[in-house]
């Protein structure tokens, strides 16, 4: 057997259940590996070995019994308040039980650490955080993606086999792509969200799994959903693709890899590829940004903005202050655009089962200057990435990012989106795609995970 920590999430769970792996030894190995590998990637910002040992001692015989996992710095734990990657998050927080924590605990999982994240969840790159940036295990000078930067980097570096992220505007799918993982953004409302400081306000954020492959996302997702995400069949999959200015503004190598993956998926499922029109996509991005940013303004007052923690990054301070200037009329119109996009998508999903396009238009950019080169020119990664990530958050539909290739030694991801409640179909399609490419990309390991190690 390979190192137990290198087994997939479901492999670890099965090995513990079968008595082939000792859960205590696995936990200690995970903590040791975090000590060994984490300094280079800053994925895990806090461990609490005694708390983890207590969780294991009390772990019920659930589907993740004894399996170590990481959770994003976005939910409270009974012994730790979330910091949202920021020195000042304009919200009251306190230690407590969140929905994802309870789901993990009740499944028998052991939380071994808190994952880094982009400050305030306000970026797709992960290069800004009160803890310092997380680094991409494929190349530590590149962005790991955000905002679930730490959970993704932790799984990619094989510190753990599964992590819980959150996706408010692509924040599971971007880091999944940059780090070569599978990341599932659930249908709005299907996964555990209570205890999040914006749970009663946000209409875009969901919790979701980041794992190496779809099988592991199915297992961890089932825990977060509180229901089994059963395996089905993607046979005859009708794949929708869009040809428009934005969808085609993609780095050539990313485009080639995604086009091949779409053809592989079509062939593997015996399905077909259909061109679809979605003009609402052009306005979906702005609508999402306006809604997501205005929903988080409840704690904002001029007085608080004038007394922000000086450790909050200049970027965070500037963006918080700029949010105050967003016109209310634009927010109202954004909600109308949301309705229009939802209505159009409902029609589209009568014609196709999934919509496919690159998760992000270029591979992970440098940490120091997160810019991407696209056919239209040089863009900030945030401006480029949001174009592909926003629609699912705006409308509530589920989406998944699947690794499908490599460029410059960095992973490329394909995004599949499906109709409301068809999360299982996305996992089925992702598994079909894995089968079609011989699991080449889900089993690829970055240098940071391939170093000789005793744990």
């Amino acid at each position, binding site marked *: 057997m390979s190192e137990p920590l290198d087994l997939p999430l479901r492999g670890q769970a099965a090995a513990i259940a079968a008595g082939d792996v000792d859960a205590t030894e696995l936990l200690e190995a995970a903590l040791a590996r975090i000590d060994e590998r984490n300094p280079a990637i800053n994925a895990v910002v806090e461990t609490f070995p005694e708390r983890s040992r207590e969780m294991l001692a009390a772990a019920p015989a659930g589907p993740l019994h004894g399996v170590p996992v990481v959770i994003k710095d976005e939910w409270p734990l009974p012994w730790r308040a979330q910091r949202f990657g920021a020195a000042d998050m304009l919200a009251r927080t306190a230690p407590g039980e969140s929905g994802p924590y309870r789901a993990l605990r009740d499944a028998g999982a052991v939380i071994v650490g808190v994952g880094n994240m982009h400050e305030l969840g306000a970026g797709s790159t992960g290069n800004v955080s009160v803890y310092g940036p997380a680094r991409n295990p494929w190349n530590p000078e590149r962005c790991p993606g955000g905002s679930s930067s730490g959970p993704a980097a932790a799984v990619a570096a094989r510190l753990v086999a599964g992590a819980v992220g959150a996706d408010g505007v692509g924040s599971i799918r971007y880091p999944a792509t940059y780090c070569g993982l599978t990341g599932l953004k659930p249908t709005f409302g299907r996964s555990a969200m209570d205890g999040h400081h914006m749970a009663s306000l946000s209409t875009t954020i969901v919790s979701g799994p980041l794992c190496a492959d779809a099988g592991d996302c199915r297992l961890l997702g089932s825990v977060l959903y509180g229901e089994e995400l059963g395996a089905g069949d993607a046979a005859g999959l009708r794949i929708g693709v869009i040809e428009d200015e934005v969808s085609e503004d993609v780095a050539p190598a990313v485009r080639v890899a995604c086009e091949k993956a779409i053809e592989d998926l079509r062939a593997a499922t015996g399905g077909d590829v259909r061109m679809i029109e979605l003009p609402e996509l052009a306005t979906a991005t*702005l609508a999402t940004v*306006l809604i997501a940013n205005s929903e988080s303004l409840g704690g904002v007052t*001029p007085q608080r903005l004038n007394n922000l923690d000086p450790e909050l990054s200049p*970027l965070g*301070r*500037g963006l918080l*202050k700029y949010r105050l200037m967003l016109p209310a009329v634009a927010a109202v119109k954004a909600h*109308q655009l949301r*309705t229009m996009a939802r209505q159009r998508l409902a029609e589209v999903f009568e014609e196709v089962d999934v919509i496919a396009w690159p998760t992000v238009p270029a591979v992970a950019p440098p940490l120091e200057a997160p810019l991407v080169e696209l056919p239209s020119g040089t863009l900030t990664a945030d401006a480029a990435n949001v174009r592909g990530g926003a629609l699912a958050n705006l409308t*509530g539909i589920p989406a998944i990012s699947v690794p499908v290739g490599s460029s410059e030694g960095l992973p490329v991801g394909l995004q599949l989106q499906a109709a409301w409640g068809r999360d299982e179909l996305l996992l089925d399609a992702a598994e079909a795609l894995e089968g079609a490419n011989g699991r080449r990309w889900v089993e690829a390991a970055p240098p940071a995970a391939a170093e000789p190690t005793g744990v």
Partner: protein
Amino acid sequence: MEASGSADDFIPAALVAFGVEADEIELAVMRAAHELLWPPILELLSLDTGSSASEPAPDLSQAPPRR
């Protein structure tokens, strides 16, 4: 009257109106955000969506009611 997209006009005026202070770095961040967001916001504001229905309390876990 022409719409002003100029960050140099808009941001300082808005900050004064709201009573919010900002240093030079924060102003630079706000200018960058403004240059990115303001053109599409103006485009959005120019859309007459008065006859477009908006789901009053959309259930985002499901498809919208059929039109």
